[in-house]
């Protein structure tokens, strides 16, 4: 007998649990949350990480100078394009970057141009730095600008 009662209670509880949102109007979100990256932001992140990989590959002797500079130029162009796309989204209110970060994006962009903003973590560094003080990545993923460092680190 207690089993029947238990079973009935179980069924009722489950039905109520599932149907309650439809009855009370509670909703689950079906849209991208504010702090989730958009496609453009994901792309930006990936291009910046690719820049870091290129720095590492050059530093460990897998890329020679010519290839290194060429690749870095390509990637920096892509990174800037991605940044601009993110910029555009922010202006149009599509992106997740709140307005105050617009300054950050501008800073990042100019930093990339001048070679003092770390491509990996986005921190600013003194102009003469060879490596980012905060995350250790090699600096100098500049677009066509002179790289602040020669060939750094190891003789491989």
């Amino acid at each position, binding site marked *: 007998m207690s089993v029947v009662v238990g079973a009935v209670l179980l069924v009722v509880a*489950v039905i109520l649990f*599932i149907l309650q949102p439809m009855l009370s109007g509670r909703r689950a*979100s*079906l*849209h991208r949350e504010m*702090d989730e990256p958009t496609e453009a932001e994901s792309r930006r992140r990936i291009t910046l990480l690719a820049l870091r990989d290129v720095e590492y590959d050059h530093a*460990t002797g897998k890329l020679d100078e010519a290839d290194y500079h060429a690749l870095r130029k390509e990637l920096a162009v892509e990174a800037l394009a991605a940044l601009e796309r993110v910029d555009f989204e922010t202006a149009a209110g599509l992106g997740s970057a709140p307005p105050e970060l617009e300054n950050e994006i501008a800073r990042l962009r100019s930093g990339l141009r001048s070679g003092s903003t770390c491509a990996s973590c*986005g921190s*600013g560094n003194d102009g003469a730095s060879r490596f980012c003080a*905060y995350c250790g990545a090699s600096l100098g993923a500049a677009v066509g600008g002179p790289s602040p460092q020669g060939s750094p680190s190891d003789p491989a």
Partner: protein
Amino acid sequence: MNLLGELALWIALPVALLGAVLGFVAGRHQRGDLQLGAERSVYAVFGLTILASAGIISNFLNDRFEYLYTASYSNRELLTWYKVAGLWSGQRGSLLFWLLFLMLFASICVWTNQRKNREFMPYVVGVLCTIASFFLIVLLFADVNPYERLGFTPANGQGLNPQLQSYWMTIHPPMLYLGFTSFTVPFAFAIAALVSGRLDLRWINVTRRWILLSWFFLAIGIILGMRWAYEELGWGGYWFWDPVENASLLPWLSATAFLHSIQIQESRGMLKVWNMFLVILTFLLTIFATFLTRSGLIESVHSFAQELKIAYIFLAFLFAIAGTGVVLVLWRLPKLKSENQIESFLSRESAFLFNNLLLLSVLFAVLWGTLFPLISEGLTGEKISVGPPFFNRVNIPIGLILLTLTGIGPVIAWRRASKQNIKKNFTVPVGVGLAVAGGLFAIGVRHGFALATFGISSFVMTVIVIEFFKGTRARARIENENWAVALTHLIARNRRRWGGYIVHSGVVIFFAGIAGSSFDVNIRQTLAPGESAMIPSPLGHEYKLTYEGMSTTSATASNSNDNLAFQLVALLRVEKNGKVLRNLTTEKRGYIAQNQPTTEVGIRSSFLEDLYVILSDVPDIRRAIMNEPDAQTATFTFMVNPLVGWIWYGGMIVAIGGLIGLWPSGAGALVRAPAVASARISKPVPVGAADC
């Protein structure tokens, strides 16, 4: 409890179906309330499945032999832990067990995505509930309900097969099932991406993490199975290319391929169709694995009895999944076009492509060999089977090339690598590889496979060590950290790369462990008490094993396991080059209600080799148990297995590497620059310090 559990299954089916409908409708019509209902259905089905599982365990613990399933896999004397494990001992319970884990992962997926991936979740929930419904339909309507009653109550159950009465039974199947069932989630996301049309980067990250998780569990599960076989089956072997073993390897292979090719899609926007194919294939293979095990279609020492009804149902499900996948991918083909091309033959992308090709070749070969009896019977009418010689013949060369690739990948840059730099970077590793192979050849090793494996392993290991060395040195210099700290930070900053290298080094050690089997020693000798056997080890020393005699314990005296009828233990004294070591025992055990004695082997493991002793034959067990003096002679098989321990060490290192890759990073979190920095800095843009 058990009645409630039985009922829970019946309630779960309509709930799961409801959840599927709610999910798909919510996605189609963008109804947030329906979506919430769908997500709650997932939790509800999970709760009901827990109830159903608890009911089965309660049946075992309370010796309710009126249930067919309990009576088949338990008896009163069974150790409590094996009664609990009864949930997955047999066909019926293991289906419920699969569903339990499936709903666990579904619930975790829904819970962790409450504020993420919202555009996908309706379809994800829809797919998850559909698959859950399938398993519930099988459980309830395919004559495999673990709650099926006999109609009478036997006095005692049949008991559990003694080969399953091992602590391995409690870890290997659960670990495998964790691996198999967790592949359902990335599959659900793939389908959701296809249906919703959102085929850009966003579904990649979530899928990749889940597949890494499943890959991790599956790898551990497979290695545990190998160790279990090695310890319990008593032949000194650990892999037999048995159909069920092969079936568990297949999804692991495609998952490994995916983990590599996904990086190409991320960075270059290529291989989108290929990656979709891999995700769907991997899930298909997990269902295929359970299908193969349950249907008994292929002869295997592992498989459950042949049950045609369930075979057909699973086959239909497989076709449905494959068909859905094909249709969806064809529909979305325009959105899956590659954005770029591979720039250079000499690039990491190229190496990854090659890796994928080889992994899928192994997959195909294993699948072909496993299904060959069916294929040949279909085509020629005659059943032809291929065994370990076939699999070894085909897979060893491919495996060796794959192993070589793991040493090439790290040295080649993305996009395009410079030829001169590659030559420069390969000099030392190739030199080491050749030196090792040459050195082994010089001391008399002629086994081709062993030479190749050790040479290539040394090559790869050198590459990896140099990578770690260079990276740590660079970082230590810049950050002014000591090398230990530098190494830790290096790994933490780029878990994908360094975790990957650790996995590769584990694979290398694993392969070396397998190569050791080329030098196995196997000697069979009959000894009377007091007699010794001299067993040489390939490493140069010699073991002397002296058979001291047999001791018996009987059911009344044994207090380790109520289920034991007798234990016949042979004691051997071990000496290595004259030095006395710990004794080894090997025994024959008899279990109540089973009538079949099992053999327990004696293993002495050291870093470089295992000494493995099997009590192969006791001419007259009955009289030996009575301690009759003239029944004490026994035949032993003595084995020395060089480097077999490296298989387990290698596996552990692979697991650690996987864990590092899985470890949640601060990706997406804001990286704050310390106040001491230049005035220009306020809030850095979130890029993520680590990339996974």
